[in-house]
Every structure is written in C-alpha cells, then in structure tokens.
C-alpha cells in the first residue's frame, strides 16, 4: 500500500473521529471570549486614562503623540544620549509617525494586533493542549480499541504505518495553526475592525551578557510579524506533537498519555521560576516553548538562552521523540 493512501486514510479517520471539529469549536469559543475580554480591557484603559489625565476623551491622542515625537527627537539629538538606546528610540519614533500619518490611535486594538497577541498567549499552553488532543490517541487509541491489530496484519511495513501517522499529524498541525489564525482574524475583526496589517511592530531584540540588547531593533510590518509568530507556533506544535505521539506509543492508553504530557506542560510553567538559578531546567522542552517572546523582547533575559538555543533544545527533543517512537513501534509486541 502506498504511503500517500495511508496518509489519506489517516486524515479521513481523524475527520471521522470529529477531533478536528472539537479543536475548531474550542478555538471559536476561546477566541470569542478572549476578544470580548480584550474589548472590555480597552474600554477600561480608556476610561482610566482619561480620568488620570483629566480629559474627557482620548481622541486628542495626536497631541500626545506629537509631543512624544518631539521629546524623542530631542533625545536623539542629545550628545549625552546612550548609544544603545538610540535604535529603540528611532523604532518608537517610526511607529508614532506611522500612527500619526495613518490616523491610527495607538491605544486602539486591531484584528492584526489581536491575532498576533492571541498566539503569543497561546503558544506555551493552549496551543500545545490542542495538539495533544489530536496526537495523544493516534496510536494509543488504536491500541485500546484493538484496531491496531487490524492495521498491523496488513501487508505494510510498520515504519510505513507510523510514518503515515506522523505525516498526518503534521498536516493536522498546519491546519490547527491556520484555523487559529483565520478564526482570530475573523472574530476579532468584528470587535476591532479588520485592519492593522501594515502597522510597524518592533522586533530584533537580542540578549547580550545577560541583558536585553535593543541596539539592533527594527520595525517590520504587522503581517510579517504575525507570520513569524504563527510559524513559531507551528514549530512548537510540531515538537509537542512529536513528543505526544511518542508518549502515546509508549503508554498505549489515551487517558494516561494525555495526563502525562499535560502535567509535563503545566509543570513547565512553574519550573521556569528556577530557570536562572538551576541550569539544567533550561534543557527541558516545556520552558523553551515561549519562542515568540524572543521576537517581542518581552522576556526576562537569561544568560545563554536565546532563540537559537531554544529552537535547538526543542528540535533535539523532537528528534529524540521521533527516533524512540520508530524504534519502539517497529520492535514492540502487540498483545491486547
């Protein structure tokens, strides 16, 4: 049997099991809640701001932005200005200038901003959980229902079966990431308007000697920034998917495999407290999932941890998981 039709078979199986539909439904509900919440925050922020500044509306943001631009220009002129902060001042100025030129209140949300933010918030827990839903019973589900025997008695090598499952998983991961993008762009569009894809966003932060270095910061358009965020999200789902698949092969029970990988992920959240003091923790995959933080520069800089480090660690885990999966799956005895 050809690999292609094996994959087709697996994908249709996943659709028939309605797993993808569940993921879709969860995404719709959560994005709606999140978008509504953001909207409320926005309203409150505006109210607080106008109270603090003693003005009735935040519509006169142009004055404030113009003011800030003048200040920053003066700052750039100062011979006493720290060289390192010049890049970030310039980037900030470009953003403000864009806001002024296009008459966009920097306070306002947009679908583009929201879509990016949603994935930045989901990448370390919510997205992995969705992937686990798909990956965790691909093999163990067949073990517990006994269909694995039917699958394996056919005249197909075992590695081919696993490979087809693996490629199916990758297809589904791409679908989930695309769904997440399209849904959050659509749903948030109803709250905040569909625009904002060309606004400049600052990125390009680095960690030098344990400090956040912003000397090479630059602006990229929002759509490109979103693309990078969602690509990193796909990479994360690929890694989490590989690991879940391995666990699903090893423990043979869907409930147990979901439990194991979920508790590992949650544990990652509190293990990250020890990151700076306890070196070995940084080699765990759970603490390296927040790849998007390297883009936005919103992380606690830790010596030795950067984008390349995290990606290498994650890739290492994924490769190890794939190797173990294939070795174990081709060698194991199928009882049950």
């Amino acid at each position, binding site marked *: 049997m050809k690999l292609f039709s094996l994959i087709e078979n697996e994908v249709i199986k996943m659709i028939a099991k309605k797993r993808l539909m569940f993921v879709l439904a969860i995404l719709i509900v959560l994005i709606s809640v999140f978008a509504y919440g953001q909207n409320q925050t926005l309203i409150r922020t505006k109210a607080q701001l106008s109270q603090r*500044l003693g003005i009735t509306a935040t519509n006169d943001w142009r004055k404030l932005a113009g*003011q800030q631009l003048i*200040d920053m220009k003066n700052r750039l002129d100062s011979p006493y200005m720290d060289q390192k902060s010049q890049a970030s001042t310039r980037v900030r100025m470009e953003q403000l200038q864009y806001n002024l030129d296009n008459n966009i209140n920097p306070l306002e949300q947009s679908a583009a901003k929201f879509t990016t933010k949603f994935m930045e918030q989901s990448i370390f827990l919510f997205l992995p959980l969705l992937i686990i839903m798909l990956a965790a019973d691909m093999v163990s589900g067949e073990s517990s229902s006994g269909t694995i025997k039917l699958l394996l008695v056919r005249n197909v090598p075992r590695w081919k079966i696993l490979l087809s499952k693996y490629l199916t998983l990758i297809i589904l991961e791409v679908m989930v990431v695309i769904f997440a993008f399209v849904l959050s762009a659509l749903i948030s569009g109803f709250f905040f308007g569909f625009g904002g894809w060309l606004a400049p966003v600052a990125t390009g932060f680095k960690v030098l000697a344990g400090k956040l270095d912003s000397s090479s910061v630059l602006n990229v358009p929002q759509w*490109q920034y979103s693309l990078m965020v969602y690509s990193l999200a796909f990479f994360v789902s690929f890694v989490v998917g590989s690991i879940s698949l391995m666990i699903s092969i090893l423990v043979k029970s869907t409930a147990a495999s979901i439990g194991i990988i979920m508790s590992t992920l949650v544990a990652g959240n509190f293990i990250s407290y020890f990151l700076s003091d306890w070196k070995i923790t940084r080699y765990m995959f759970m603490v390296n999932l927040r790849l998007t933080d390297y883009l936005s520069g919103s992380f606690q800089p830790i010596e030795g941890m950067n984008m390349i480090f995290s990606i290498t660690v994650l890739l290492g885990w994924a490769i190890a998981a794939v190797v173990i999966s294939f070795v174990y799956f081709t060698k194991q005895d199928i009882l049950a």
Partner: protein
Amino acid sequence: MIKKSMWYSILTIASVGFIVLAMGFYQAIMVTTAVNPQPPAKAPLTPVPVGSTKLSSKTANSFQLLILGDSIAKGTGDEKGQGFSSYLPESFKNDTSKEILVNNAGIDGLESLGLLEQLQTKRLDKTISDADFILVSIGGNDVKSILSLNDLAKEDQFKLRQDSYLANLKQTLKVLRTANPNAIVIFLGLYNPYEIVSNVENTRLLNTWNYNTQQLVEEDGKGIFIPTHDLLKFNIGRYIAKDGLHPNSAGYQALSNRISKSIETIVTGL
C-alpha cells in the same frame, strides 16, 4: 466522494501552509539572530531647541547654567520643546544684563545611579567647573516603579530605594563640589503627577523622600532645595503634560519663575 475532495483540499491547504510557515520560521530566526539586520536609516533630525545642548565657553560678560538629571531637566513634556533650558534664562533676564549660557545634559529616564555614573566619566568636568549655577533634577525615576506595589511591599522597597538614592546623591554632590566648589546647586524636589488618584500613604512617602533630600542638599552652604509638590498639587490639570507625568510648557515656566525668585539676589550680584 465528499471525503475525497475534502482530503485533497486539506492536503493543498496544508502543503501551502507548510511552505509559508517554513518561510516565516526562517525569518523569525534571522530577525532574532542576525548580527546586524540593516541598521535603520537615520531619522531626519529637527534643529536643536535653543541653547539646549551646545557646549558654550565662558566669558566675563556671561554666566553659565548647567542642567543635570532626568527627563524633567531635559525638558520632556514641554509641547514647545523648550524646558528649563530656555525658560530659566528668560526669567533671569530681569535680574541681570549678562548673557546666560546654558548646557543641558539631562537624559530621559535617568536614575540617581545613572547621574553619578555620568559624572564619574569626567566628560562633564570642564562644564561643571565653568558653571555658576547647577540645576539638578533626579530621583523621580528611582521612586516611580514602587508606586504600583501594595502598601506592605511599598514600605520596604521605599526604604531600600531611598537609601541607595541618598547614597548616590551624596556621592554626586561630592563629585560636583570637587569639580566646582563655588557654584550654586539648585535641586528640584519631587511632585506627585498622580495626585488625583493617589492616597495619603503615597503623599507621606513623597514628603519623607523630599525631606531627606532637602536635608542632604542643604548640608552644603551653596545648595538650595526647590519644592515642586506644593506648586503642582492643585494644578495637575494646568501644569502637567498630556503624558500625565512631566510638566508642560506652563509647568516649566511656573517652576522657572519659582527658581529665579529664589536665587534672584545671587543672580543680580553676579
């Protein structure tokens, strides 16, 4: 057959998606690791506001004012982009016929440690020793971050910050005096830009801070502490800029008037 077409559309979407995501992934790695991702083009700069930064030399017919410290020294918030650099000389005009030369070395966001480091680089030593008046505004950024803490943590943090701030300030004044034993040091007190939403506790801490600063500054016979809290307390709407933190043009002018009144006789006598 529905399943067949669904499968093909899924396959197409997934393949295209995969390629796009792979490109994005490559970009993400490049942008965070590239050694120098094309330094942004130098933004066009507007002409420097009057007398703000030029290093001027001293003559018999002039006196020099050096402005040191944070964004308030720099003049941030003034919608006319002027700040003390131009309002202070203006208000001195009535008291003296001499020319007033201003050097402004204010840096936005500077904390007391930063000011001390700036002075220790010795780059400013010549300017300091030439100055007749030195206006210092520092401390606001030291204390700013503790405002959001809860009352218990605030008390502790405040003590820590204040101790290190006072130590830095002491050092700073020493450096100033070593370079120039005669200049009048004018020190601006702190105000509370969040007066409207603030509680009594914050006011108490602010007063403690200002009191201790005043004690330190006026240990020196030629130092004067200029309070700002009283001037701004009921005038937040009038004197604070749109950013809700810095004084606006009117605020800087009001403060300049107060400073010039305090040292009027000295200026006249020069």
